[in-house]
């Protein structure tokens, strides 16, 4: 399609969007109507008292990060669907990549700074990634962020050491373990509480590390799965065996 036609279509769609959205409630707003029930952690109506950081115990949903309480608490089934889509795309990359190339990517010899620096920085990246996905219910972070940070650490190893090979069996087992345990915990929640992925562990005090029931465990499994999956994609792109 030539550029003129493309520009015309884009201008038409743009005018339509701007006219259609200008009388929706997207103007200058000071406060957004967030559901009061969710902020007070009272969606099912079983809340014993007010929510005070560091003092309230046994709430309905014990995490201090509201986005985490949506992603792994109220809408954990959608997160299971997303893990499935990521697994399918990693499967597709793995299935087609070895039809295209079958030898390893030839890398230049790395410099001295890169080799020494990678040895120092990689453990720090690992510790930071584990910190991010284990504190997902207290501060910004969670499984997806922590898993991606682990994958970036693996990329650093690939760049700095020319003979580095990712252990395929270990990472496949890790990824499978993460996925299967997620579903098994969901089934246990269904048997214990009546809904799939129900939070059956006790919710401690809001704001402590060991709180919020099942949420840190689920995020840990998601972090392991996403990290090993993205590392597997990188291994397929680098080629080999």
């Amino acid at each position, binding site marked *: 399609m030539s550029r003129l036609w493309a520009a015309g279509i884009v201008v038409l769609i743009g005018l339509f969007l701007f006219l259609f959205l200008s009388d929706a409630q997207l103007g200058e707003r000071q406060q957004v109507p967030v559901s009061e029930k969710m902020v007070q952690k009272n969606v099912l109506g079983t809340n014993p008292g007010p929510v005070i950081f560091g003092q309230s115990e046994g709430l309905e949903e014990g995490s201090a990060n509201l986005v985490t309480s949506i992603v792994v608490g109220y809408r954990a089934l959608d997160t299971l669907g997303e893990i499935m*889509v990521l697994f399918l795309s990693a499967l597709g990359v793995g299935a087609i990549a070895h039809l295209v190339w079958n030898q390893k990517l030839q890398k230049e010899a790395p410099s001295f700074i890169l080799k020494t620096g990678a040895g120092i920085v990689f453990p720090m990246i690992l510790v930071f990634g584990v910190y991010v996905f284990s504190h997902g219910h207290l501060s910004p972070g969670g499984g997806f962020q922590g898993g991606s940070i682990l994958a970036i650490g693996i990329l650093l190893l690939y760049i700095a050491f020319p003979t580095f090979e990712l252990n395929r069996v270990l990472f496949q087992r890790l990824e499978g373990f993460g996925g299967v345990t997620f579903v098994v915990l969901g089934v246990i929640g269904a048997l214990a509480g009546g809904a799939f992925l129900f939070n059956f562990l006790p919710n401690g005090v809001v704001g402590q590390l060991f709180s919020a029931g099942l949420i840190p465990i689920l995020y840990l499994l998601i972090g392991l799965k996403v990290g090993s999956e993205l590392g597997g994609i990188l291994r397929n792109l680098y080629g080999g065996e």
Partner: protein
Amino acid sequence: MNVYTAGSILIFLLGLYGLLAKRDLFKMVISLSVLDTGVNLFLVAVGYGSGGIAPILTDTYPLSVLHFVDPLPQALVLTSIVINLGVTAFALVLVARIFKKHGTLDTAKLWQKMGGEEE
């Protein structure tokens, strides 16, 4: 229509133009990535109010005076960013396979090579 929603719609339109006007498959994948960024920016901009704070409970503010930014679009965008990465990786491997088999990435020449009729 504040500045955040308008700007993100402009970026979406830029990605749409790149997807329609380019003939090179690699540029199409890049335009798809630009379009994804525009959509994610629009979703977060819908839930933004200029008097709100980040949706995390801390001990500095008591809960009665808090006005949070809407956390639900942020949960949607979290999912969307990770899925876009997976789709882009898969699309790139398909592009590499097409390049290896046919030697070109121009859609007009590929249409002829794969046996399509003349336009």
